[in-house]
């Protein structure tokens, strides 16, 4: 059976390949579950019924899909073994839908909203450190920086993805409560990320100085004011109008300042 689980795990990387507006990850879900259904259903009609049962709507965080797949696989095994009578046949799709939402929220918050930015910042910290502190060795070591990001992120990502599938097999519907007990990880990563962000900002200032190479004024104090304004305004503008708007606004403002000779 471990071979089947491994195949399901590898297939989970393709859950979004056929993402569509109508039923989102439905085919990805069927694709992951297929080796398991091939194994447990010996009756072709029942297998077809099971496969069609999972072509309905499904959407969750790609990393968390393993939990739902595992829970559904356990239920399908029971159905295949006829240990569940028709009257007590669980509404598999209902379970899928109720699990998908909270898991998606957890995955988005932890992996995409917290872990990835935190690791990005570690890489940026290393980048600034390499450029300014280890200047002479920078060219040789520069290519390591993106790989630090990828390795750090994927160690957590792949291990979590693998473990989550077995969590689903072990705890079934209770998995969501088990995951909730790890809320300290979310808080820890978030706070760690914020600390790294501030540390990187401090390193940036100490490496490049407060002066903008005389770009805006000769005084460091005035440049510090410019930095502060940009820092605060960027948050305000991006939260209301979006990052692309912020990007072009900065460019246009800088060009205007240059044109006016300020």
């Amino acid at each position: 059976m471990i071979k089947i689980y491994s195949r399901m795990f590898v297939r989970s990387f393709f859950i979004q390949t056929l993402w569509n507006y109508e039923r989102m990850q439905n085919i990805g879900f069927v694709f992951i579950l297929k080796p398991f259904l091939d194994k447990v259903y010996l009756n072709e009609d029942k297998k077809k019924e099971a496969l069609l049962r999972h072509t309905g709507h499904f959407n969750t965080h790609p990393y968390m899909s393993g939990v739902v797949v595992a829970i559904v696989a356990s239920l399908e095994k029971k159905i295949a073994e006829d240990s569940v009578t028709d009257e007590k046949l669980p509404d598999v799709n209902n379970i899928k839908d109720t699990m998908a939402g909270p898991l998606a929220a957890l995955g988005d918050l932890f992996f995409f909203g917290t872990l990835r930015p935190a690791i990005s910042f570690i890489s940026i910290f290393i980048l600034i450190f390499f450029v300014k502190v280890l200047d002479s060795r920078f060219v040789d070591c520069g290519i390591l920086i993106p790989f630090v990001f990828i390795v750090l992120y994927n160690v957590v990502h792949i291990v979590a993805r693998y473990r989550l599938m077995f969590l689903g097999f072990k705890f079934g519907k209770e998995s969501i409560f088990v995951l909730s007990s790890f809320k300290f990880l979310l808080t820890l990563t978030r706070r760690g990320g914020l600390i790294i962000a501030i540390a990187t900002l401090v390193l940036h200032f100490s490496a490049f100085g407060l002066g903008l190479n005389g770009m805006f004024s000769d005084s460091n104090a005035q440049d510090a004011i410019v930095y502060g304004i940009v820092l605060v305004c960027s948050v305000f503008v991006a939260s209301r109008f979006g990052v692309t708007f912020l990007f072009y606004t900065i460019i246009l403002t800088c060009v205007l300042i240059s044109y006016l000779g300020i």
Partner: protein
Amino acid sequence: MTENIIFLAFIGALCSSDITAFGQFMICRPIFCAPVMGFLMGDIGTGLWIGMIVEMLWINAIPLGVSIPVDVSLIGVLSTFWVCKYFSGFQEAAILGIILAVPFAYLYREIDISGRKFNTKIMRWIEKGIESGKYWQINAGVITGLLFFVLRAFLFCIFAMIVGGWIYFSIYPQLPEFVLLGFKKAWYLMPIAGFGMMIYNFKSVKIPLLRNSRDD
């Protein structure tokens, strides 16, 4: 060190495909794909700085639910490609590269949306296959979807690298001095705006599921 557009477009397509089509290993993030592009073209420094700026600014650009954000990997890949190919080492040129790459990334987003609509047709084909007992159509459908995804990203990369490169090469030498000075100023301010976005990202992460035990 290479300037082979087919090879570089293929690398760009692979990075872009990571967003949804396969894995989500985050090789789509500019902090990875821009330095790799720079390394392949012999100017990793430019790739690293462009990657850092684009990563920090578009930190929240990731598909959540049904939202399809701008393809940030293309911003990183295209801007690094143009800068390394035509005006390597110029900060102003790097800013112009990002300025031009953003519209291309938005254009690709529309193509991506069309691609996802096309996925519905593959989905129906698979469904019919299951109904008629042709289970092999599940695997074939997923492989076809993946190939379509990589192919459209690859073709778009080639198109953007050539057409965008021509626009980029034509525009940059014509820019007046004050515009270049403005770009240089923007180059120094972009990381600061990026830090603002990063700090905002961490501050804005809420924990709705765990609201009872909110500790922030």
